[in-house]
């Protein structure tokens, strides 16, 4: 006589699991030293993040249009952008090492600090927060902060784009965390436009390398403009 132990496989439970996976992907990306694996992690994160709204309690009655939009998001974040980035890596033969400005261990500790900070902010916001989902808020802020950090602490242009993408995921999560009524939901959906920017940046990387035969899109090499 075998049965699943008194499982709480409710919608909420799955949502929490997805959030945990998001945090996992954030930390893995902070520690990742290979461009390809970083892109894979971002694809995973994109899929998980765009699935989260389906599993939140207060989004149970979603309109058809927002369901379609979420599917578009899944497609863009999980498939299109990572595929695009793979193409960029392949086409212009970017070196596969990530080349951090701040080392991996220090980055991981920074991640730790972001988590603490996020927990602190969330507990402070508790009074006026509309939704009682702490995990969502903590995850969202951590993702946002880690994305910004990744953006600033890596040399390569492509890794900066990845940092930006992660930051955008964080913003999207904050939006979902706060979205309570129709107005907020409506605004959150415009986050898709940020993906457009990401796409354009990657396109810039691809196109301008082919056109003008720059050997590397390393922004460190592009370090000629400065104030003396």
């Amino acid at each position: 006589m075998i049965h699943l132990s008194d499982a709480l496989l409710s919608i909420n439970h799955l949502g929490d699991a997805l959030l945990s996976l998001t945090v996992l992907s954030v930390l893995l990306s902070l520690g990742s030293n290979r461009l390809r694996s970083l892109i894979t992690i971002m694809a995973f994160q994109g899929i998980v993040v765009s699935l989260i709204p389906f599993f939140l309690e207060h989004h149970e009655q979603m309109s058809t249009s927002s369901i379609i939009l979420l599917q578009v998001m899944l497609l863009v974040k999980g498939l299109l952008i990572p595929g695009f980035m793979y193409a960029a890596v392949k086409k212009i033969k970017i070196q596969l090492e990530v080349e951090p400005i701040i080392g991996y261990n220090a980055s991981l500790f920074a991640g730790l600090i972001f988590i603490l900070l996020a927990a602190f902010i969330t507990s402070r916001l508790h009074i006026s927060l509309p939704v009682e989902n702490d995990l969502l808020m903590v995850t969202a802020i951590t993702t946002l902060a880690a994305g910004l950090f990744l953006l600033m602490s890596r040399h390569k242009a492509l890794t900066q784009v990845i940092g930006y993408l992660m930051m955008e995921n964080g913003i999207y999560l904050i939006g979902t965390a706060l979205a309570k009524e129709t107005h907020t939901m409506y605004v959150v959906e415009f986050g898709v436009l940020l993906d457009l920017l990401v796409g354009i940046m990657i396109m810039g990387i691809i196109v301008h390398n082919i056109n003008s035969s720059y050997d590397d899109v390393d922004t460190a090499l592009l370090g000629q403009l400065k104030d003396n």
Partner: protein
Amino acid sequence: MLELIILIPLLTGIIAMFLPVRLGRGILIVTALLHLQLTVFAWLGKIAPALPRYFTVTNEGMLVLLVTSFVFLFISLYAISYMSEAEISSEPIYNGCTLLFLATMSMVTMADHLIVLWIAIEATTLMSAPLIFLHRSKTALEATWKYVMICSVGIALALLGCFFVVLAMDIGGVHVPITFTSLGTVALQLDPVWLKAGFIFLVIGYGTKMGLAPMHTWLPDAHSEAPSPASALLSGALLNCAFLGVYRAHQLMYQAGLGDFSANILIGFGLVSMLIAAVFIFNQTGYKRMLAYSSIENMGIIAFGVGIGGLATYGAMLHLIHHSLIKSSLFLSSGNLLLGYGSKLVAKTGNMAKLFPKTFTAFFAGFAGISGFPPFGIFISELLIIMGAFQQGRTISVSIFILALVLIFAGASRLVTKMCFASCDDPEILVEENLARTLPSYALLLASIVLCIWLPDSLYQTILSAIATIGGGVNG
């Protein structure tokens, strides 16, 4: 149909991308003229928006639109001559993109909806990036990359700010369209905590675009790498549009009774921008970078003036107008210098008074104007801001303000005297100056002088009603 102001440059811009250069130039000028005409009509209140849910005519928007359109016309006139001399291969891209850029900037000035404003500002980034990359050099690529990257981060944070403002609305239980106009009517019911958070993110986001320190790092690179007409457009028009985003947010805060909070933040950003500009302008080696830092300084002055309130707000609005006029003129002159000397470095220039007398007149007059000498308008605007600040009893801030002004004047004049009067090591003129490339500069400077001496009453009324919404006025 107010939207024509956006649609016309949008359409002609797309067309101009595919047209041969000569035809493209014609379209550029015709569109600029048409745009100015439509703008004046809109300013006189003769056209109404077709989509009042998203667009509206506001006093401050019209002010910025008027300045943008006016400056754009003269920059386009200059660009035609400049482009043929500079031998830029992708001139159709310039023609198309400036027009598209004009369209997005017009959209910013008329946007009433929170998200439409956001989209418009995002679009200005996308449309102006090709302009910065026009020279296709390695440094241009770097500048463009920085510009797109930093401004995108700013835009993303601004979206977060929009979330918070809308959240403040939801928590307050308000159900109105998400436009600044309708939010203003119910501002007192909005949740103050989230409104404050929203304001901070909006200021950081749009402030990045506006060049407020410490988010200004893209600005010197972009301005120095872009071809001069594009730099003039960035400095004279784009920064104002971004400022409009900040201004709208401040307006909302004022209506919600949180004006002090937002004013202090604006004063802080303003002073930091001025100080940073003062420090960095001292050791500049490139004259375009120097002008870029001066733009940062002037944006700081505008933010400061708006933050102070009262009379200073009036000064800030005047400053916005005059800065656009004078700074575009300066960037246009710097284009002549770049063509003539073939270098952006101050060290490679010199003896401008002898070598390029016409450009020298425009450049030196522009420098005098931007430093606040009469008869240029900046003299009055800065004076009004200082007086306003004293009226409000902000003694410490205003001391820092004056200190920064003095430092910047000292730093900039060192470079400018070197450029104008010191002997030049290599006095070879690559491209002679001509009237086609100096007259637009003169015209812009002349406009500044005229507006300083005689301010049309309708303009005066527009400024007054614009600043009345954030508690500013000439009577303190």
